[in-house]
Each structure stands twice: as C-alpha cells, then as structure tokens.
C-alpha cells in the first residue's frame, strides 16, 4: 500500500487543489497501486455524493451529516468489509471532508443553499459583494430556491439591468429564465429589453424571450430592426427575433 499520500492529498486532488508537483506523482501511483486506487475511488464516491446534495454542508448539523453520509455509503459501497466497520470508516472520511470543506465551501463556488434561516442574509451578502463571482453565486442561490417571492425576482431584474459586469447580468438573466414560470420573472425580463447595455446580454435576452414565446415584444423588435441609430448587431438580433416570433 502506498503511504506517501494522505487523506488530505486525496481530497485536495479531487477538489483540484493539490500542488502540481504532487498531481503527476499521485496519478502515477494510482495506476500502479490498487489499494491507493481503491482509496481514491472511495473518496471520489463521497465527494460526488456531497456535490449531489441539495443542501449545503453548512446547513447540516454534523450528526445529521454523518448519519446521512453513512446511510449513503452503506447503500452504495460494494466492499466486502463488515458494514459497521465500513460505515465507521466512511463516516470518518466524510467527517474529514466536512472539516476540509466547511470553511471554504461557499466562497469556493458551491452550488446551493436552502437553510431558510441563513438564506436571506447569505444572498444579501453575496448580492452586495464587490466581486462579480459573489453576485453570480447569489443569482444561482436565488434560482435554486423552491419558492421565490416577488422581491427576490425584482433583485434579479435590477442585476440584469444595472450590474456593471455583463457576466453578472448574464447570470441574472439565466436565473430569471429558470424562474420563467413566475409571472413576475417574465415581467422583469420584458422590462429589461432596452436598446442599451452589453451586446451579449441584449442578444441573449431576445433569445430567451423568444423561447418563452413572449409575443408582446414583437412591436419593439420591429421598431429596433428599423432603427438605424442602433448598432448593427442589435438590429440583426431584433430582425431575427421578429422572424422567429412571427412563426409562433
């Protein structure tokens, strides 16, 4: 058994944080050492399970997390060790992963948060963040909620229209499109259709409104396609959009 690689090394490897110099050595060792390969696969299974959860780790109590992890691993592992030993081992591994990830999980770009007590303060903090990556994370957080109220949708609309980063606007647009079943979300999208703003956002907004079959925008697209004061890319997108919506 290869003892040169610690559990932390394997976790760092799976999360893309292992030093470059160790990556090659680890991958080579995994090819030649079946026990190391098995350990890595165990960690990969746990890591994948963690990422597939609908809840952020920090929203679990540690006991809940370990019980849940143990349950998952008991059902998924095909190893021949005794179930009790296996659960204990996996719980220990899961606990170590929990410790490693719990601090940096959110800012590292994790996906979803649903703890209702923390939710409001967390998305608010992210939305007010100076970094565009934080505001993008806020849009994902909002879109992932099972129920989204008008105020949250309105905040997404403001991001779509006013954020200085076009990439944040695109993320807000994606979130609003995901919430297309809400009347308010559609209103925000239509309200955001203005002949100014970043090109990629304007074109994508037209595309999404076409996908949502919002024929209300047809008169505006018609006007834009004829308006020589607008940039060529926007007139083209409006003309194409008008053509597509006409066929609906």
């Amino acid at each position: 058994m290869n003892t040169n690689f610690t559990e932390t090394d394997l976790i760092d490897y799976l999360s893309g944080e292992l030093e470059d110099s160790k990556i090659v050595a680890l991958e080579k060792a995994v090819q030649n050492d079946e026990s190391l390969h098995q350990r890595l696969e165990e960690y990969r299974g746990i890591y994948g399970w963690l990422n597939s959860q609908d809840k952020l780790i920090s929203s679990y109590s540690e006991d809940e997390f370990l019980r849940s992890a143990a349950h998952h691993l008991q059902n998924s592992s095909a190893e021949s060790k005794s179930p009790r030993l296996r659960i204990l081992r996996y719980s220990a591994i899961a606990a170590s992963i929990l410790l490693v990830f719990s601090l940096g999980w959110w800012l590292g770009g994790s996906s979803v948060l649903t703890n209702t007590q923390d939710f409001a303060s967390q998305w608010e903090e992210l939305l007010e963040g100076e970094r565009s990556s934080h505001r993008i994370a806020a849009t994902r957080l909002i879109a992932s909620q099972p129920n989204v109220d008008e105020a949250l949708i309105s905040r997404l609309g403001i991001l779509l229209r006013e954020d200085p980063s076009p990439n944040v606007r695109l993320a807000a647009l994606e979130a609003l499109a995901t919430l297309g079943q809400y009347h308010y979300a559609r209103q925000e999208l239509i309200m955001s259709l203005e002949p100014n703003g970043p090109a990629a956002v304007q074109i994508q907004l037209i595309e999404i409104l076409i996908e949502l079959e919002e024929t209300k925008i047809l008169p505006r697209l018609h006007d834009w396609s004829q308006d020589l004061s607008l940039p060529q890319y926007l007139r083209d997108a409006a003309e194409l959009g008008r053509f597509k919506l006409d066929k609906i």
Partner: protein
Amino acid sequence: MHKLSFFSILFFLLANLTLNAQETQAAFTINAANKTVVFSEIGKLKIVGTDANEMRISGAGPRKRNSRAEGLKLISVSGLQDNTGWGLSVTEDGNTITVEQVGKKNNEYTIELPHSAVLQYTQSTTDGSHFRIESFSGEVDVTMMYHKVYLFDVAGPVAVNCVYGDIIAEYTARPPSGDLRLHATYADVDLTLPAATAANLSLSTSYGDMYTDFDLNVDRGTMNEGGKLNATINGGGKLVSLQSTYDDIFIRKK
C-alpha cells in the same frame, strides 16, 4: 560605388526617421496584490499569473513608437496620459487599478498579474487582437465583442462572454478550482479538461451542436427543447457552464 553609398545613407536616414520606430523599454510595475485590476480596450494583451505582489507591464515585442515624439508624453482625446512609458495609462483608486490604452497603436503587451488580484477585462471594438490568460489563479471577468479569448490553466472563478470570437479554454495541470462560465453568442466554446475532472456541467446551445469525449451522467429531469443539458462528470463538482447560442460547444478530455 558612389551611387550605392548614397542609397545606403538615404536608407539609414529614412530608417531613423520612420514614424514607427521600434525600441526596447523598461517594464512598469505597481503593487496589485489583492486588488481588482480593470483592463479596458487594450490592443493585444497577454496576462500571466505571478506569485509576486507587483503587476509588471512589458511588451511582447519591440514597441511601436513615433520617433518624432521623443521627449513627449502620449495623450488621448479622453484625457488619458501614458504614465507607464508603454502607451498605457495606469490609475489607482482605492482597491481598484485601471489600465487603459492611450493612443491608437496596437502594441502587444505581456502583463504579469499577482494571483491574488481580480482580473476584469473589456474589449468592445474591432481594434487589437485576441486576449490570452495563462497560469493565473485569481478571479477572471472578461467581456469581449469581436476577438477570441484564450484561457490556459486559469483556476478561477472564471466568467467570460464573447459575442463574435471563440472562447478556448484548456486546463492541463488541474481542473478549475472555481466555477467556470463561458458564454459565446455567435462563436464556438471549446474547453479541454483533465480526464479526472469532477464537475457539474451546464451546456446550452440554441442553434449549434455539442461534442464531448467525457462520459456524462445526464440529469434527464432538466433536459428541455431549449438546447440545455445538465450533467455531471466523475461524480460532479464545480460548475462548468458553457453556452454558445448560435455555434458549437466542445468539451474534451486531456
């Protein structure tokens, strides 16, 4: 013989008077650790990550410069001044450093940027050329209109949008450590990842095709007619969101 000497001297004089004389130049440095560095409308730019705290501006080749401007400072209609000696204006306001091109000569720059910095880049005109980032661990936020964007081993989080140019990203040493969002409107998105990368994929194209040699675990519940596909590779991990509205998406194993 006399005729040959005359032409030799004439050539020498013309070479010295040429409007685009090229010369070497000392690098410009400024502390950029933990700061947001905004690059705006710069001709040909390559960013390379560095462990140092200072941002270092230098040329990728000899600098184009008007020999008549010796001893004069380059200015622009917007009031910018070349305070770097490289045809660039660098200003600092709080935690933000802004780098802008002064004048219209498309010099080729290599800028070393601390990994702790946040990189923002905007290019909205047909001036200049593609934008390239190499071996950078900080946050990246790029908006490009016409040119291609190349990313090599950029850890992220990364968000890039480009209307007419391809976005080509390659990870050779390790997968992205932050979320990766690449959005092209009328061009390809081409991503290469290490084979062992664990990621949550969100792929979307309305009018293009998608290609991969990864084994995808497709989330069939989210499949729709809008050309969007959610899937995981190697058990799932960081978000990798690739969108090309009118063109193709490629996601390859390294």
